[in-house]
């Protein structure tokens, strides 16, 4: 298997120059090595990246870092426990986006934790997927989690199933599973669109405890209204660090906080400049941010 993979990778890199040339001829009208319009962006990313990296190294030295309590993440164990006591399933939905979406990747990290808990409590885990690539990844995540919990024999591959790529077809399928099997705990983590409220309200009607998490700001009010707990924006990305408690992961959270403090300081300073020193504001706009 590994040998085949290696051959594939070598072939890919061998074919890359020809492919690259073809693609370059099609698209490379702009011959600049760096797009100066994206300079503020690269500075911001490097600055926040530096703080994240710095705190990861700092956390590895063994110093204990404080993380605030996130109610939605503490409730995960409670929700799985409740489902086990009731003898019902746990349902986990990874959202509508594909595996190239960062929210889906964050969701898969949380799925690993939920799957480990369901394996330990010996309860049934259902993972209907909207994308086939997500399904294959979710199957691996769950299999690994059951293995880590020491119960690989309890993993049912068919429980991590693909429904459809279509938005409302997927909703109909998930709602059908909710109404028929009545899971006691529903998790909605990842990217959601108009279907968020249909899913959450159906889950609410079946009496399930519901925990949602998304960075899609337009869907957050729906989840807040219909779910018991909601992870808002960055909390979804922080979940894996919070749940694992690994020093490296926790350090990254601290770096994130410094990044937010920087943004806050920039907003306050900019507000003061625009309000009290309009000429300085014009000067900065026309020199530094001129594009």
């Amino acid at each position: 298997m590994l040998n085949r993979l290696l051959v594939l990778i070598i072939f890919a890199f061998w074919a890359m120059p020809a492919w690259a040339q073809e693609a370059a001829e099609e698209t490379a009208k702009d011959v600049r090595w760096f797009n100066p319009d994206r300079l503020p962006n690269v500075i911001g990313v490097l600055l926040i990246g530096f703080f994240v990296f710095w705190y990861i190294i700092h956390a590895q030295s063994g110093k204990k870092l404080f993380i605030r309590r996130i109610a939605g993440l503490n409730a995960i164990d409670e929700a799985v426990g409740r489902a086990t006591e009731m003898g019902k399933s746990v349902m986990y939905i990874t959202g509508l986006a594909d595996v190239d979406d960062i929210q889906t990747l964050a969701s898969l990290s949380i799925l690993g934790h939920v799957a480990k808990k369901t394996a330990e409590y010996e309860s049934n885990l259902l993972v209907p997927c909207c994308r086939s690539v997500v399904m294959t990844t979710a199957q691996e995540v769950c299999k690994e989690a059951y293995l880590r919990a020491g119960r690989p024999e309890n993993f049912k591959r068919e429980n991590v199933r693909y429904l459809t790529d279509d938005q409302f077809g997927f909703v109909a399928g998930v709602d059908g599973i909710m109404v028929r099997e009545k899971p006691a705990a529903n998790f909605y983590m990842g990217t959601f669109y108009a279907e968020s409220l249909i899913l959450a309200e159906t889950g609410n009607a079946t009496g399930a405890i519901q925990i949602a998490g998304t960075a899609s700001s337009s869907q957050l009010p729906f989840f807040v209204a219909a779910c018991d707990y909601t992870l808002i924006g960055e909390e979804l990305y922080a979940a894996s660090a919070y749940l694992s408690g690994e020093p490296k992961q926790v350090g990254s959270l601290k770096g994130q906080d410094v990044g937010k403090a920087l943004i806050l300081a920039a907003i306050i300073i900019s507000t003061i400049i625009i309000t009290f020193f309009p000429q300085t504001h014009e000067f900065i706009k026309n020199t530094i941010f001129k594009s």
Partner: protein
Amino acid sequence: MKREIPLFVCVVSALAMIIAYYSPKLDWMDDMLQKWFLIIAVFAFILGAISIILVNGNRISKQVPGWGYNVVLLIGLFVTLGLGIFGGIDPKTPFFYIFTYIFTPLSATMFSLLAFFIASAAFRAFKAKTWEATLLLIAAFIVMLGRVPLGELMWSWLPVLKHYSLNNLVENWIMGCFNTAGQRAILLGASVGLISISLKILLGIERPYMGGE
């Protein structure tokens, strides 16, 4: 090797995407990797179809309650697939009729349920149990009034408030100040979180694509 190779592929792909974003000369790498992802997705799509057939076939063979629905699903899958492959998808083909007159109305039906779910969720969310919930209720009531012509009419009957524009209050003050400020705060926090998690994936600290290990 089982862990190193996926990690190597991930790091190289991520770096290529980052470089392509900042360098117009090298943005062909972005297009190329997107094409590679599509090719992989096609193979995974076959796995998805196999999953549907296995899960539903298993339920039919065990005759679990409601197995008739699984039969309908499999018939729908094979009939649509067959008609699409052998008859084409152009207008006036059987596949086109299935898409236009069965699939589209069914999707619209699911979408239309949203109106009723919004009403039931709003009913629960706007219960004035605490003073925060009462504020939410008042704000929501004003915004709802501001969105319908009847609201403007009712506003014009109010003695003092009629001199002020309801639309201005809703659009510029409630939606423009409070709502936008809240949304941007969430967006900024999420963006910083996104940079952090991307960096962790790039450094191999977080590996959800490898079974969470």
